């Protein structure tokens, strides 16, 4: 049925089959490698949350949430035991926030059930969740600066303990009980970030929360503050509070969590025991480890240099006058027909690197040269005209006008070029005709070109963007997470388009959080860590483990894995790819594959 479509290098879902069916027959020996696709509770043999001990504080079953055009969560299962710190991990865009919004009553799931302390619940508003003892501390604090801690805490909760002495006593009591060290009379504007965070936590506890959701709490903290926060969390735990901790920082999660669940591409891909799992294994689970076979294609790399980046540096000075270096001495070159992959845990400077090359961020130093032409001082439009195509990381924010018709989106970014305009005048007729061409050539599934971009699915939006960027003979394509939030079929098509263009001599800068994609597509891989390119590797001679190690900053220089490991690694991969390539993704028999998931981490060791 799908024979005419380009076969994908791999397909994800069959290797991570739906949870419930598999939970029941997962053999116990999965535990020995610490990562299972089933359950964090070591002794459990069946699906019911550990009989005998306390019921799970939170139990999510089969949660699915669709937004127009995207499935944000697909069949998510999560069990959090009472009195534990449970880490929820996944790359940005994996669906963690949506899941937590569902748990906190900010969004309603389309399918699935929520059980709190063993009772089925339905949340329509955060108020319902709070009534059930769930509290959330958002990544961005929601405090009024010009009010005191006391005023901030009672705000909206005046009925609980009043607004006077009783409330203050309660705040002191909570603060002492959990060792938060909050002073009720301090003005919030005088507090540092870590103190504000403790106020937020206290605010939630004050409202009687027994289940605490912390959305990336460490993102804003310095290491010492992180340690202090973790002490607070342990204190909370010992007092019987359940903490759900969202993060993508591997070491932090390992340091504090009692159980770990990993979400990838909107679904739970496995649970891990932090005592037994390594950071590398976690990284792999988070970004995926099944690889397309990289050696199956010939190199198209030529000797002509297309993009040269020399000593790129961007430093921002924050409010306290401390200089934060975002990009430090980045130098790289991409030749015609070469795909350079940048690996790295998100937030290490990838986005800034792309924006610096696109001319969207001012440089503090360094030069960008495209095809012998210095672009350093030029504006974004001039760089686009010079031949840079751009597939942005966040297509809704940077790639599309969601409420404009498709043909206007086809003009976006290329308004000065043929066929979109003649002189200073637009040429809507030609632009419309060319939009039809893109729709047909790139298989954009749409009933027409007058519909708004918002009505297309994520994959089709992305195909439109790729079609548009490829239509102006780019010399360099910057592809930032080109298959993020895209269904498996579209993913394969997108990869194929990039490869075809590469064969035609395009230079590609590929940023991805997905190691499969990076190793499968790239000719060279560089690893970015804290704004520096710390390591490089040849995708044919490196394993995902070693890349993962470099991504966490633990390795640098030229990465070369042991040949046997690579061989073994690729063997499993090929098997995996074949198994996955058999049928349409979600129809694969679920019992055939779970062991693959478990085997992958072992393969590289």
């Amino acid at each position: 049925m799908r024979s005419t479509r380009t076969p994908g290098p791999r397909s994800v879902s069959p290797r991570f089959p739906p949870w419930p069916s598999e939970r029941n027959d997962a053999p116990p020996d999965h535990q020995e490698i610490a990562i299972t696709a089933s359950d964090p509770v070591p002794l459990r043999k069946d699906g019911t949350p550990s009989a005998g001990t306390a019921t799970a504080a939170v139990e999510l079953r089969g949660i699915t949430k669709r937004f127009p055009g995207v499935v944000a969560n697909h069949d998510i299962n999560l069990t959090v035991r009472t009195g534990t710190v449970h880490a929820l991990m996944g790359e940005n865009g994996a669906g963690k926030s949506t899941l937590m919004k569902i748990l906190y009553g900010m969004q309603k799931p389309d399918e699935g059930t929520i059980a709190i302390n063993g009772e089925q619940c339905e949340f329509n508003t955060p108020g319902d969740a709070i009534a059930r003892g769930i509290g959330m501390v958002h990544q961005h604090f929601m405090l009024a600066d010009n009010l005191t801690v006391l005023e901030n805490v009672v705000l909206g909760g005046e009925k609980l303990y009043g607004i006077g002495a009783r409330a203050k006593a309660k705040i002191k009591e909570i603060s002492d009980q959990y060792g938060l060290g909050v002073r009720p009379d301090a003005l919030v504007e005088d507090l540092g970030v870590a103190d504000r965070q403790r106020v937020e936590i206290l605010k939630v506890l004050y409202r009687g929360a027994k289940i605490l959701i912390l959305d990336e709490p460490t993102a804003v903290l310095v290491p010492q503050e992180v340690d202090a926060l973790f002490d607070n969390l342990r204190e909370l735990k010992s007092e019987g509070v359940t903490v759900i901790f969202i993060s993508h920082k591997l070491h932090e999660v390992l340091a504090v969590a009692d159980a770990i669940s990993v979400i990838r591409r909107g679904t739970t891909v496995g649970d891990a025991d932090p005592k037994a799992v390594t950071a590398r294994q976690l990284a792999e689970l988070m970004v995926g480890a099944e690889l397309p076979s990289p050696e199956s294609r010939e190199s198209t790399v030529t000797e002509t240099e297309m993009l040269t980046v020399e000593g790129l540096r961007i430093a921002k000075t924050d409010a306290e006058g401390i200089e934060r270096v975002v990009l430090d001495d980045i130098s790289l070159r991409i030749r015609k027909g070469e795909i350079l992959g940048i690996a790295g845990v998100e937030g290490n400077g990838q986005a800034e690197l792309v924006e610096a090359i696109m001319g969207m961020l001012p440089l503090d130093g360094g030069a960008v040269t495209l095809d012998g032409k210095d672009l350093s001082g030029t504006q974004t439009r001039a760089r686009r005209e010079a031949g840079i195509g751009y597939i942005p990381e966040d297509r809704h924010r940077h790639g599309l006008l969601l409420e404009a018709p498709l043909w206007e989106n086809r003009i976006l970014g290329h308004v000065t070029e043929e066929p979109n305009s003649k002189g200073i005048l637009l040429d809507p007729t030609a632009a419309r005709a060319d939009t039809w061409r893109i729709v047909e050539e790139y298989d954009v599934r749409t009933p027409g070109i007058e519909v708004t971009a918002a009505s297309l699915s994520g994959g089709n939006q992305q195909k439109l963007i790729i079609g548009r960027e490829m239509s102006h003979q780019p010399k360099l394509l910057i592809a930032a997470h080109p298959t993020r939030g895209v269904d498996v079929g579209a993913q394969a098509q997108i990869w194929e388009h990039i490869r075809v263009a590469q064969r035609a001599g395009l230079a590609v800068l590929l940023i991805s959080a997905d190691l499969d994609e990076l190793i499968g597509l790239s000719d060279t891989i560089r690893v970015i860590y804290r704004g520096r390119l710390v390591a490089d590797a040849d995708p044919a001679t490196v394993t995902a483990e070693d890349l993962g190690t470099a991504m966490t900053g633990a390795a640098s220089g030229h990465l070369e894995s042991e040949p046997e490991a690579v061989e073994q690694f690729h063997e499993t991969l090929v098997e995996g790819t074949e198994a996955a390539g058999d049928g349409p993704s979600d129809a694969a028999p679920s019992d055939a594959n779970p062991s693959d998931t478990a085997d992958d981490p072992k393969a590289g060791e």
Partner: protein
Amino acid sequence: MTSPNPPAAAKPSLAQRISGERIVLALAAPVLAILLSVAICSVLLATSGKNPFDAWNVMITFVSGSDHQVLILNRTTTYYLAAAAAAFGFRMNLFNIGVEGQYKVAALFAAFVGTQVDLPSFLQIPLLLITAMLVGGLYASIAGLLKVYRGVSEVISTIMLNSIATAIVGVLLVPGIFAPKVSGTSNSIQTSPVSESSHFFSFTTNGGQLWGFLVIAIAVGVIFQLTLTRTRFGFDLRATGRSETAATASGVNVKKMIVISMVVSGAIAGLIGLPELLQNSFYYGQTFQQNLGFLGISIALLGRNSPIGIAFAALLFAFLDAAGSVLPLPANGEFPFEIVDVMKGTIVICVVVAYELVRRYGLVRQQKRVGAQLAAQAAAATETKEVSA
């Protein structure tokens, strides 16, 4: 793979592009808002002991007089320019609240130049138009530059510049500077009349003098529309209005766009005072018409910032103001004039809410329809393949 899309021959014609549903959706909001506002005002009138139907009757019969029609059209001219000035900024999410100040300063300077210079009409009139647009644009550019270089919200700065404009007029419009040293018969301080050659032409009709400035207003509308839909600049402007982040990534220099749009908005604002100045009063004084800038913002909202939409909105507001002015006459039943203000206010509030509701409804509806159409296509494709297999 066979494309699921219709072949090139099936490209939709212009008629299909402008579908009936779109027109209905576009008109639904303002029509609903007007009906709702009429209902609210009817209740208000009824509670104050007046018969609302009599009031509506007075207003509707007002239109039948040809002199009244001319009056309404003349007002529409001014209102349209005011709305166009505001709408131009709104199209890229730039809230130029300062139209009020821009037109006052521009009209003052145009009046002054008009009294000082006496060229032949074909030079004098363009000179005055350019003066007004230049002054309005320059005055607006202050807010644009402040936003770009110092990050000051244009809403705050333009509101303040409105007060400053009043002060500027107060400082300059004194005997010896812009006003003649020896005041005339009137107590009001005002400039001398502009020279004879500055008088704009008008059409003589059965109902009196129809201002020739209507032509200028129409020209502004046509240029506005063409710029938006047919030029690269207009595309950049709309793209910035829809998503500043996407526009930046696409290569639009947003800072430059902010300054240019602010200046263009101010330049159009500069024209607002000219119909009155060059066709009716011929001088600028303390009694010069106020609050046109704020009225323009309301009209732009009602007309959804589209050059055609604001034409209808301006016509409606001109009608309400003109017809409202006869309501208090004893012969008409002494209805309170304020009812017209209530009506204008409720229309604008209702329409803002209604537009948002209609916009969301339309977006969701289209997403659903696209989904359904694609599902149908996919089903059809599967069937064909199964048959052939």
